[in-house]
Every structure is written in structure tokens, then in C-alpha cells.
């Protein structure tokens, strides 16, 4: 599988990354090099192997469904790049 320039531009859009012309070129080359290296995984037959998402066995633990204090609105908004009337402000959407 070889990534084209167009595919790299599409992936950048999916990842919400604006790339310069030079970056598209650089990443096309570097991604192909890294994915080419990852191709060696295909040498292994893993048909009968289960995937490992977590290396340590865990079971879900649910806490009691009880009301607890939450973080204050001021604290949540203290790092907001732009806020108004207790809301995060962003460019107009509709």
C-alpha cells in the first residue's frame, strides 16, 4: 500500500490539520517509509490470535450512582481562549 499526496491531504482533513505544501510532501514520504516498515507485521500469521487492547486484565468497576459536587463553572472556563456569559465562544456555525 502506498500513500498518495491526495490521500495524505485527505487524512490531514480528517485529522483537522492544515498542512503546508512542503509538509504534505514531507509527510507523504515519511508516512510511506514508516508504513513500509510496518508492512513486516504482515509476515506473521495472526488468524488464530486475539488482539490485546490492554496488557493487564481488568474488569469494569462501576461506582455507586450518587450525586457528587462537580467542578465550578469558573474553574472550567478559566482556560477558555474566548468565553461569554458562562459559555465557550466559537465562530458562528449556522
Amino acid at each position: 500500500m502506498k500513500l498518495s499526496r491526495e490521500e495524505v491531504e485527505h487524512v490531514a482533513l480528517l485529522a483537522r490539520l492544515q498542512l503546508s505544501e512542503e509538509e504534505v510532501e514531507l509527510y507523504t514520504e515519511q508516512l510511506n517509509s514508516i508504513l513500509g516498515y510496518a508492512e513486516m507485521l504482515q509476515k506473521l500469521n495472526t488468524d488464530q490470535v486475539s488482539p490485546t487492547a490492554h496488557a493487564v486484565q481488568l474488569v469494569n468497576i462501576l461506582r455507586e450512582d450518587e450525586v457528587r459536587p462537580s467542578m465550578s463553572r469558573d474553574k472550567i472556563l478559566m482556560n477558555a481562549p474566548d468565553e461569554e456569559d458562562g459559555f465557550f465562544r466559537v465562530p458562528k456555525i449556522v
Partner: protein
Amino acid sequence: MTMFKSLEELHNRLVKKEISCVELTRSFIDHIDSVDSQVKAFLTVTADSALIKAAEVDKKIAGGESLGPLEGLPMAMKDNMCTEGIPTTCGSRILENFNPPYDAAVTERLKAAGAVLLGKLNMDEFAMGSSTENSGYHPTANPWDLESVPGGSSGGSAACVAAREVPFALGSDTGGSIRQPAAFCGVVGLKPTYGAVSRYGLVAFASSLDQIGPLTTNVRDNALVLNAIAGHDPKDSTSVPFVKPDYTQFLENNVKGLKIGIPDEYFASGLNSDVAEVIQKAIRTFESLGAEIERCSLPHTEFAMPAYYIIAPAECSSNLARYDGVRYGYRAEADDMIEMFKKTREKGFGQEVKRRIMLGTYALSSGYYDAYYLKAQKVRTLIKQDFDRAFEKYDVLLSPTAPTTAYKIGEKSDPLAMYMGDVYTIPVNLAGLPAISVPAGFVDGMPVGMQLISKHFEEGTLYKAAYAFEQNTAYHHQAPALLKEVR
């Protein structure tokens, strides 16, 4: 105080009132002032709050109260662990102005233990890198040679301990980011079992691999710090409920009968011959102490790197989707939302981060998920099974921590060549195992690290082996020439 021997020594000096906590803290701040312009380990120095905290500890001492083992002792944390009200940048421009509204679990625990935070440490942006050259701020230098890298991504943590700017620091390890810089800087670095230390409040990179751990100048100190930070945390759903031992109880100078496996694959091509010789000498030391040494095989080792460089970027692309300039961090102005996201992320992230986001987004995208991500997770199972089989026979596996010593800043520009520096540490993260890097010797004046790996939650066995090695060698007593100059 720059040539302190151990945390215990500093603790005793406080208890015996040979030095006040304010004096101790000030001496470390002065030392940071004198060397950090060269080492550049710190992103933020919290001198004022440290001195206030130190004065509180002095009040306790004056009141005759007893002190915990870390109480009043200076420390610093990698800048990807949240500290309420203190900037936490993750080495990224996108978080330049971020002041966390809460503490990470490790911050809370160290505060509860009475440790004195001296500041936040430089790192590769979002912990992606092996040299601390990828920080959004500045590269950190290796105290043993200021023209060389300290390793990464916890390069700030390792360098500041090596330069004795603090007696201990916390780092995080996703593919070797505690152990590799510990090796390059000649200090002790432990990557605990996945789930042994809470990741609550650690800025996530690759959530199934990231783990916080201590960097110290010796093994006993490392065990003392792990005592303070390990243990179950209900706020982290991946934290494992386990009975936490007192890790210092494992520190005995005795490895008679300890079964140590030497994996052939970790001594193959790519390993620098001088580094190999240092590690062979370390193996002979263990042998002379009565450990049982045997060669063994971890046959899927060569597949760990490619599996990691699919899994880690995939998880990173998901985790870093939150940096959109809406709720925190840098925002680029634009007329519509999509443009705002794209420009914010373009300006806020550095090259390595963008490369991994792109790689991960591609590996998880429709049509490629099975070929890359699922395949890599299956290979991860094979790697874990290799270790499971080895640990049926051996207590500990021994290897070099890194294939070379620290290289010069700017020497490696090809990402794949850079990634190879983590070839011996990555399999451990994929399997969630604990591993420690301890100073094992020098090549051309630069430190070499030895890695010891054990079963899940067997950090005690690692400490036992590492402590015995340390008691019978003197490498950890050596300090960079930089310190002799400032003394």
C-alpha cells in the same frame, strides 16, 4: 547540597535539625539557578510556592512532629502531569497558557507525602520523541555532555536528577521514555507495571501504554518514591486494585539463586559493541553474586517496533483530537469552525506530533483499520506471550536499555532512525510489564544503562536485583563534570 547521597540522608539532616527545610529548598533553588541555564531541564521553576511549603515543614519540625520519608524533600515533575494553578504545557505551544484546574493523582499523592515541588520539567512535545529535542520550547542538554541529548521524552526529568537539581523527579514512559533518558543520563528510572500508578491527570498520549514512574540517583530512593505514588485510584479506570508492598523491604544485597534470562534478540545487530561489552560485564557481576544466568529467546521482538508505531500513533490521534482551541490552549482565529480547528492545530503542534496524528488517523481510517491497527494489536498478543513464557522460567530478564549512549543534539533527523533508540524498551510497554534502568558503566565518558524486566507487579524483584548490582558497583556514585565545576 548538590552532592547529597540519598533521600534518607536529606531526611535525617532535616530531622536532626542540621539544616532547615527552607535552607534545603533554597540550596536546591540556588543550584537550579547556577546550572539550569546550561542543562535547560526546567520549563517552570516554582521557587516561591516551594519556599512557602518548606516553611510549613519547618513549623512541623519545630513543633516536634515526625516527618514522612519524603516530607520536605525537593522534587520536580514532567510537564505532562497536572498541577493545580501551575502551568502544564506538555512541552507544547498548544498548551502554553494552560493552568490546570485540578491536580493529577501523583501530584496529590506527593503533596500528601509532603514533598516540595520545585517545578515542571521539559519533555518532547506530548511525550513523543526519544531525545527531548522535540519540545515546543527548547532542547534539554545531557549534563554529562552539554552537546548531547538527554534522551526522551522524559529528558528534563532525567537531566535534572543527573545534574542534582532535585533529588528525585517523575517521568512518564510510553515506549521507554523513563528508562532511555535514565540510561543516557546515568540515573535510575523505573517504568512500573501498567495500572500500578494512577494516570489520572497525566496528559494522555497513548493510553494503553503510558505509565508514570520515578527517576532517582539510586535504587533505594526509587523505591521510596514508588511507595508514595503507587496504588489503586478509583478515578483512573485502568488503575489496578493490588496490595501495595513497602518496596524498600526488597532491598537486600543478595541475588543468590535469582534466575536471570538474557534474551538473544536484545544483543543482535544494531547494538553498539562498546555498550554490549558494558552489559556483558554487568552480567558477569550478577554471575559472581550467585545469580543463575541463562540465554533465552523472545522470538517476536523484531515485530514490537512496527506494532508500537501503529498502536501509539493510533491512540495519540484519538487523544489529541481534544486540542481544538475551544476549551483550553492556543486558538487561531478564523471565520468558521473547521478552519479554526485546522489552523489552531497547525500552529499549536510541532512536526513529530503532526506526523504521529497523521499516521494514527490513517491507521484507524475506514479500510485500513484491520490491516494496521487490528494486526498490530494481535502482534502485541504474541509479544506478551513471549514474555509470559520467559517468566515461567526466569525471575528477571536483563538487556541493554538503549543500543547506544547519548548522541549529539541534531544528529538524528530521520524519524525511523530516531525510533530505533527505543528498540529494547518498547516491548515492555506493549506487554504492560515493569522494568528499571540502572547505571551499568560508561563508554567514552557517557553513561550506559542496563534494563531489568520482571512480571506484572513484581517491582520488588526488580529493586532486589538492581539494589544488589548497585551495592557491588560504583557507577551511581559518579556525577557529571558539570557538578564539579559548580561546586
